[in-house]
C-alpha cells in the first residue's frame, strides 16, 4: 500500500488537521481491560435498575417513563462511549457529527410523528 511517500506524509496525517473539541481523535490503549469491565457492570446495572423500577412500580406512570428513558439513554451512552470507541479515528473523528445529528433527527422523528398522529384538532 505504501507507494507514495509524498502522500504518506501529508495525506496520512489528515492534511494536518488534528481535530478539535469533541472530534479530536482519541485511541483506547489499555493494559488491563478496565473500561470494558466497568462498561459491562454499568450496562448491567442500568438495565436491571430500569427493569426493577418497572416491576416494582416504584413511581407512577409518567415519572417512571421518564426514568427508564433516561436510563436507556445512559445505556446508549455507555455503549457508544466505552465499547464503540467513539473518537477513534485517523485524523478528526468526523463520525461524531453525523452520529449526534442522527440521534437528534431520530428523536425528532419519533416525537414529531407521535405528535402529528395524535390528531389534536382542537377547537371543537
Amino acid at each position, binding site marked *: 500500500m505504501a507507494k507514495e511517500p509524498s502522500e504518506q506524509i501529508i495525506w496520512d496525517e489528515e492534511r494536518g488537521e488534528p481535530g478539535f473539541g469533541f472530534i479530536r481523535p482519541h485511541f483506547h490503549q489499555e493494559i488491563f481491560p478496565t473500561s470494558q469491565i466497568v462498561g459491562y457492570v454499568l450496562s448491567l446495572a442500568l438495565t436491571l435498575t430500569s427493569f426493577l423500577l418497572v416491576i416494582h412500580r416504584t413511581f407512577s406512570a409518567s415519572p417512571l417513563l421518564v426514568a427508564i428513558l433516561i436510563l436507556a439513554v445512559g445505556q446508549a451512552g455507555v455503549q457508544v462511549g466505552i465499547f464503540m470507541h467513539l473518537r477513534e479515528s485517523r485524523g478528526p473523528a468526523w463520525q461524531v457529527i453525523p452520529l449526534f445529528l442522527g440521534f437528534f433527527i431520530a428523536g425528532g422523528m419519533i416525537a414529531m410523528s407521535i405528535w402529528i398522529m395524535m*390528531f389534536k*384538532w*382542537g*377547537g*371543537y
Partner: protein
Amino acid sequence: MPKRGGFFLVFTRLQTRLWMLVAAGTILMPFISGCGSHYVLLHPAGPVARRELDLTVYAAVTMAVIVAFVIALLILTLIRYRDRPNNPHAYTPEWHDHRLMESLWLIIPAVVLAAVAIPTVKTTYALARLPKGSHPLVIDVTSLDWKWMFEYPDQHIATVNYIEIPTRRPVLFELTANSPMDAFWVPELGGMEYTMSGRVLPLWLEADRQGLFWGRSAQFSGIDFEKMLFHVRAVSTPSFNTWTASIRRSKPAMTLDTYHRLLRFNTVGVGEYSSYPRSAFPSITHGFGLSGGMYPVLSNHPQKN
C-alpha cells in the same frame, strides 16, 4: 454576415415585433379573460373561502414583490455585465464579499416572511373554530368508492352526491371514509380536507349567497375518481326546511341493503333518502356501529371510547 440596408432592418424588426405581438396575444388571451366565472377560487361564496382567498392573494402579492425585484436585478446585471468588447462597467474578479449587503438580503426576506407568517397563524387558528355562538348544521360525510354519501343527523335524512345547505349558517361537515383516502372539496365554499376511514375530521364551511356549487374529491382514489363529483345547493333557510321536509315525506328510506349497494366499486347518480339506519354509519354523534363494509372492527375504535 453582410450588413443589410436600413429600411430592411427596420422592416425585419417590425416584422419580428408583430409576430411577437401575435404570439403574446395568443398566449395571453385566456389569461386576460382570467377573471371569468370559471375561476372558482376567485369567486368565493362564503366566509371561509373568502378568508382563504384573501390570504392567498396577500401572500402572492407579497412574494411577487420579491420576485419582481429579483428579476429586475437579474436583468440589470445581465445588461451591465455581459462579456462584450469595451464593456464600460468595471470587472472585479476578486470581489466576493460584502457584509452589509449579505445581511440585508438575510433580513429583508425574513421580514417579508414574517409579514406572511403572522396572518397565516391568525387565520389558521381562526378557521379551526366555528364562529362563536353559531348553531351549525351538521352533515356527516362519508366518501365511498366512488361516490359521496351525506347524512343530516338532525334532519334524519341522507343524500348521495348532492346536498342542500341553508345560506348564512355555518355547516359542520364531519368527514370520514369507507374507502381509501379522499379529499372533500367545495372550492367556492372553502378549502379541502381528507376523508379517512377510522377517523372523523371536522370542517366547517358557510355559504353567504344562494347558488349551485360543485364539489369533488381532490385526492386520487382509483379508476373512477374523476367521477367523484357532487353538488351543493345553497338556499334560504325556509326553502332548506321545505326541502328536508319533502325528502322525509316523499323519498324512500335507506336500508342496510341500500348502503351495501353503495359500497360497491362503481359510480351512481344523485340519491335522496328519507331516513337512514343510524346505528349503521360512522358519525361522531352516534359513534361507530358499522357491521358491513371494509372495516369490520371499527366497533373497537378509540373514537368511540
